[in-house]
C-alpha cells in the first residue's frame, strides 16, 4: 500500500471514489480507500458497485406489465429506444422516467439512480385497482388506481420523479425509512419530484405550484393535489378522505406508529423548509436550493439523520457552496428556523463533502 495515495483517496467522498474506481488504472487504489474510508458503508457495497459500471450518460428504461397481478417484474412490454405502443400507462412510465433521468443527468451530472447507469425498471398495471406507486428497492411499480378516488399512478411526472428519487436516496444517504429519517426520505422524493416538474416546465420558484400529485385524484375528490410543499395540510379536504394531515412546522409534528412513523405526514415540515429556502433564494429552484439539497443527500447525511441533522447539513453545504453568511446560506437557515428547526452548524462542518467538480453543469439549464 502507498500511504500517500491512500491519504489522498480517503478524504474523497464515496461518489468520487466510485468514479475513480471506474478507471482501470485507479480502481485498485480507490477500492482500497473505499474499504477503509469511514464515510463509506461497507466493503460489500464497494465490491457490489463494480459490475454495475456502465457508460457515462447511458439511459436505459425497461417497462413491464404485471397484467393486474402482483407478480414482478411482469412481462416486458417496452425497452429503451423501441417504438411506443397504445398503452398510455406504459408510455407515461417510459416518458416521465426518461425526463427524470434527463433531469438528474443534465442538472447534477448523475447517471441514473446509482450514478452508474443502472437500468430503470418500471412495472405498470400492478394488482387490481391498486391505489399506489412504490419503490421496492430495485424498481418502480405503479397501480391503475381505483378510478373512484385515484387515477392511474403514472399520470403525474412528479410521482414518477418521486419514486425514482427513492432509488437515488437508497444509493446515497440511505435514509432509514422510519420516523424522522423516513420523513426526510419522503421529503427528498417530493423535493426532487417537484424540481423535475419545474425543470421540464422551465418554471422559476415563484412560478411553480409546489404541489405534489396534481391530477392524481379523480374529479370526485375535493383537493388540489396529494401534498402541498408551500402550505402543508391544505392540499385536500374531502368528505371521504378527510383533511390533509401534514404539519407545516415542528410544533405540529405527529407522533404515530402508522405509516412507518408518519413518514408521509411529517415530511410536510422539511418540504416547507425547502419551499421557503427556494422561494427566498429565487430563480430556478434546482440551481441553488436543489443543488444544496442534492449535495447534502450525496454528501454527509447519515442514514439515521433527523430534521435537525438535515438542517445543520443543508446550512453547512450552503455555506460551502455559496459562502458563509451568503444570501443562500441565510435563506436555508431562516427556512429551517421558520418551520421550527434551528440549525447548529459547527458540529457538522467537518463532515461536509467538498463540491463535486463536475457540478458546474448545475448552474445552467440546457435548452
Amino acid at each position, binding site marked *: 500500500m502507498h500511504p500517500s495515495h491512500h491519504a489522498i483517496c480517503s478524504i474523497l467522498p464515496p461518489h468520487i471514489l466510485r468514479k475513480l474506481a471506474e478507471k482501470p488504472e485507479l480502481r485498485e487504489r480507490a477500492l482500497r480507500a473505499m474499504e477503509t474510508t469511514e464515510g463509506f458503508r461497507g466493503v460489500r457495497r464497494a465490491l457490489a458497485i463494480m459490475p454495475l459500471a456502465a457508460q457515462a450518460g447511458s439511459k436505459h428504461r425497461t417497462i413491464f406489465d404485471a397484467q393486474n397481478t402482483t407478480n414482478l417484474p411482469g412481462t416486458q412490454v417496452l425497452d429503451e429506444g423501441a417504438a411506443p405502443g397504445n398503452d398510455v400507462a406504459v408510455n407515461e412510465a417510459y416518458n416521465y422516467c426518461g425526463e427524470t433521468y434527463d433531469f438528474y443527468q443534465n442538472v447534477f451530472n448523475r447517471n441514473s439512480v446509482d450514478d452508474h447507469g443502472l437500468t430503470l425498471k418500471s412495472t405498470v398495471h400492478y394488482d387490481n385497482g391498486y391505489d399506489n*406507486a*412504490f419503490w*421496492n428497492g430495485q424498481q418502480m411499480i405503479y397501480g391503475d388506481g381505483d378510478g373512484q378516488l385515484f387515477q392511474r399512478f403514472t399520470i403525474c411526472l412528479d410521482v414518477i420523479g418521486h419514486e425514482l428519487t427513492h432509488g437515488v436516496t437508497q444509493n446515497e444517504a440511505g435514509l432509514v425509512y422510519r420516523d424522522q429519517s423516513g420523513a426526510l426520505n419522503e421529503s427528498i*422524493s417530493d423535493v426532487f419530484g417537484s424540481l423535475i416538474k419545474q425543470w421540464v416546465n422551465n418554471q422559476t420558484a415563484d412560478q411553480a405550484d409546489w404541489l405534489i400529485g396534481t391530477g392524481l385524484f379523480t374529479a370526485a375528490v375535493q383537493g388540489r393535489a396529494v401534498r402541498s410543499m408551500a402550505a402543508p395540510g391544505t392540499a385536500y379536504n374531502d368528505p371521504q378522505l378527510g383533511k390533509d394531515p401534514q404539519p407545516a412546522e415542528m410544533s405540529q409534528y405527529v407522533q404515530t406508529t402508522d405509516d412507518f412513523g408518519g413518514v*408521509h405526514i411529517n415530511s410536510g415540515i422539511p418540504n416547507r423548509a425547502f419551499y421557503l429556502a427556494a422561494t427566498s433564494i429565487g430563480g430556478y429552484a434546482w440551481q441553488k436550493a436543489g443543488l444544496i439539497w442534492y449535495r447534502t443527500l450525496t454528501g454527509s447525511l447519515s442514514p439515521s439523520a433527523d430534521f435537525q441533522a438535515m438542517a445543520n447539513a443543508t446550512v453547512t453545504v450552503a455555506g460551502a457552496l455559496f459562502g458563509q453568511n451568503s444570501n443562500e446560506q441565510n435563506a436555508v437557515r431562516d427556512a429551517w428556523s421558520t418551520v421550527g428547526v434551528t440549525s447548529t452548524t459547527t458540529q457538522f462542518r467537518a463532515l461536509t463533502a467538498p463540491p463535486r467538480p463536475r457540478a458546474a453543469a448545475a448552474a445552467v439549464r440546457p435548452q
Partner: protein
Amino acid sequence: MNIRFERSGGFAGLRHTRSISSGELSAEEQKRLADLVQAARFFELPAVLRSSVPGADRFQYRISVETGQLKHTVQVDEAAVPHQLQPLIAWLKKVAQ
C-alpha cells in the same frame, strides 16, 4: 368475531380504517372469515412484522381480531405479509372497499 382493519402509508399517505363484526355478514361469509383467520394462524403471529428489504411508499396494515376470549393485533408491512396471511388481507381489502 370482531375485526378492525387499518391501512396506512402508500404514496398518498392516506389512512383507511374499517371495523367488521361477523354479525353483519352472511352465514357463508362468517364461515369464510373464520376459515381465513384460522388458516392465517392469526393468533400465533407476532405483534409486529417488519420488512427487511429496502423500499418506500409501501402500505402498512394493522389488523385486530377479537373472538371469544382471544384478542390479538398484528402490524405488518405490505412487503412482509406472510404467505398464510395473504388470503385474509385480500378478503379484508375487498370488504373494506
